[in-house]
């Protein structure tokens, strides 16, 4: 059965800390891995990763995929209180023409001032 596991489930840090969030997956015919940030409302798209070893970066956030280890990490440097959110990881596999995502349960990050 296809699945996505995120760790840790929750994390509390102080402003300025660097955090690393993990996502591991088991999926038939992997196509892509996506990271989303969810604050109060809608999950918002952060990164899509398809190739191993190529880092995607946006400001203080970066992510990389390791297809050999079937995993990805999301790094946030110099954390700010505005980074407090649930970070969701999702994976697409070769599930025909429906383009469904398999979701992890998320990592809840709290950044304290």
């Amino acid at each position, binding site marked *: 059965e296809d699945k996505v596991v995120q760790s840790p489930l929750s994390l509390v840090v102080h402003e300025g800390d660097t955090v690393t969030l993990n996502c591991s997956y088991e999926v038939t015919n992997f*196509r892509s891995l996506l990271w989303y940030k969810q604050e109060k409302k809608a999950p918002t798209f952060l990164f899509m990763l398809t190739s191993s070893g190529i880092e995607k970066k946006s400001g203080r956030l970066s992510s990389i995929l390791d297809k050999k280890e079937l995993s990805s990490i999301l790094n946030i440097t110099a954390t700010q209180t505005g980074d407090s959110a649930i970070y969701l990881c999702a994976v697409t596999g070769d599930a025909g023409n*429906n*383009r469904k995502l398999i979701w992890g349960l998320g990592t809840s990050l709290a950044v304290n001032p």
Partner: protein
Amino acid sequence: NAGVTQTPKFRVLKTGQSMTLLCAQDMNHEYMYWYRQDPGMGLRLIHYSVGEGTTAKGEVPDGYNVSRLKKQNFLLGLESAAPSQTSVYFCASRWGQGPNQPQHFGDGTRLSIL
């Protein structure tokens, strides 16, 4: 730049009542999805559509029906609401072409069934 719009934002129903949640997207996306999100359960797919006039079941379809009569709209119906359907419902859409396109989400509908 509206993106994905869900209505209503909040609703309280009594057990047995019916209602329809509306999702509208203005990005000309082919694929649309309905999820529910519950504590400890993550996002679970209810139904989805790969184009106008098509619908298909996700992992938790029981108790829900959907329709996609127009490309831009995806409706989720509860025929006889049950307390177990208390949840936050999210609609998402994505561009159809190519395997690697992200889903874009609406702000959600918080539904309580008493």
